[in-house]
């Protein structure tokens, strides 16, 4: 059997700045910092500390798993830029991990079986990032792929028993968990990342979900 190579993972799509190293199927280390605007300052020191704690050298890392979006443009760019910088120095493959799928995987592990749930995060004043899943034996099933929708359309997509996660909350008791922990990014890459191993790191960009429109004054 092929020896497990550590997976270093980064999650910076929202206010949670998270870095993890998956050392085996059972063991990992993770550092989290939940605060606005600290990602650029803290991410690299966090990764450095993490590798120290895990007694692992960067050259021993097999792949770099990065949360690719959707989410904060700046946050995603910080995560991916750091990944590119680390990767190019040691020739490490980067695996882009769909942020909402990784969060769905994390949530499905603890939700009751056959629960329909929505992840919805604010994108801008009018729009939200939206995806719908179903928990199935601790795994997630995709119902509606991640997309950008108008806030006014949300009510049409929300069925009665759907649980809502994310920072687009309508009721006080909704769950505000809006991004996964970095270890879920690593686990997603471990399970689904095999298709990505020949990607050119240089071509990777965050999943912005739509073109940026310049409004003329």
């Amino acid at each position, binding site marked *: 059997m092929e020896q497990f190579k550590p997976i270093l993972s980064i999650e910076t799509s929202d206010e949670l700045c998270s870095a993890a190293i998956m050392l085996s199927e059972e063991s990992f280390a993770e550092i989290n910092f939940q605060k606005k605007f600290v990602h*650029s*300052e*803290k*991410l*690299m*020191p966090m*990764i*450095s500390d993490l590798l120290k704690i895990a007694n692992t050298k*960067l050259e021993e890392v097999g792949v770099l798993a990065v949360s690719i979006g959707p989410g904060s*443009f*700046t946050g995603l*760019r*910080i995560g*991916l*830029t*750091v*990944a*590119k*910088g*680390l*990767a*190019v*120095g*040691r020739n490490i493959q980067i695996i882009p991990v769909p942020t909402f799928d990784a969060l769905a995987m994390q949530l499905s592990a603890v939700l009751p079986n056959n629960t329909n749930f929505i992840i919805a995060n604010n994108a801008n004043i009018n729009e939200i990032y939206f995806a719908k899943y179903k928990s199935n034996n601790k795994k997630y099933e995709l119902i509606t792929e991640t997309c950008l929708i108008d806030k006014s359309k949300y009510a049409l997509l929300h069925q009665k028993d759907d649980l809502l996660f994310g920072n687009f909350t309508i009721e006080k008791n909704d769950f505000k968990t809006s991004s996964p922990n970095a270890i879920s990014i690593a686990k997603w890459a471990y399970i689904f990342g095999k298709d990505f191993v020949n990607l050119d*790191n*240089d071509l990777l*960009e*965050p999943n*912005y979900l739509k073109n*940026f429109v*310049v409004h*003329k004054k």
Partner: protein
Amino acid sequence: MTILGLESSCDETSVSIIRDGEILSNLISSQHFHLKYGGVVPELSSRAHLQMISPLFKKALEEANIEKEEIDLVSATAGPGLIGALLVGLNFGKALSYSLNKPFIAVNHIEGHIFSCFLMEEKPEYPILSLVVSGGHTLLLLVKDDLNIVKLGSTIDDAAGEAFDKVAKMIGLGYPGGPKVQEYSEKGNPKAIKFPVANLKGEYDFSFSGLKTSVLRYIQKEYPILEKITEDEKSNIAASFQDAVVKALSNNVKKAILNYEIKTLSVVGGVAANKAIRNKLIQLAKKFNKKIVIPDIEFCGDNAAMIAYRAGKLFENNIISDLNAVAFPALPKNAFIAN
């Protein structure tokens, strides 16, 4: 010593490798797509930096004909500039330095420009009187040595380059305005229209907002229908405006030469590419018998060679940065203030 420089503060992604003061590669990828918006769109700029940074790094290694392991020091611009754009170069640099296991230095972009004159064959001697003129900054500085830089004056409103851009827009020359205004000025009469040169409280401060407004008033008064401006008149407006800018800059430079002991005069930054400004400073240096060092045009605009060079100077002075170095959009209030 082999130093990698990264620059991404505005609309140019640049990667440079210098070795013992010699430039092995200095690649600049300019984001021309901003032209159609009449100015730099920050989000688009950040996206383009992220696309370019890694390929450009590989290309720079190739051109310098070195392996990445030969890099001894990694440096990147930390500010001032567009924050989203800065974050790309800075974070790529921090991660790369960690990955290569080499020290990292976060460089102040303005200091990069100041020291760009050291990239020339003719080396400046301290103390240097340095005029920094770009799209975002206008500063007059006394550079005493590698680390002691004192601000004598700065603009209280628009930067010189900003005024060029705005005036170019007013007479329909397009963006970026600097080269266009210069081109038209060459055909015009600088004495045709008398535009004002600000007289300010701060002895070495600058102001270009009044000049800009005065150009606007002139155009509004003389040409209620903008399309009727002839090419000749555009040239005269450009030449007269440029002449006023040169006067404003050189007046303060002259005062500083008279009041401070300096050996070298230098003008740096994007607007230092302007011929009239270069010529005027060369004249002043001759008149007062000072050495003059002005970077070649390719080192006036934003480039990573100047960042790498500045990082080398800091390293010689035992200054290095931590992995928690942050980007800063504006020049800190206490920057270049004498203790």
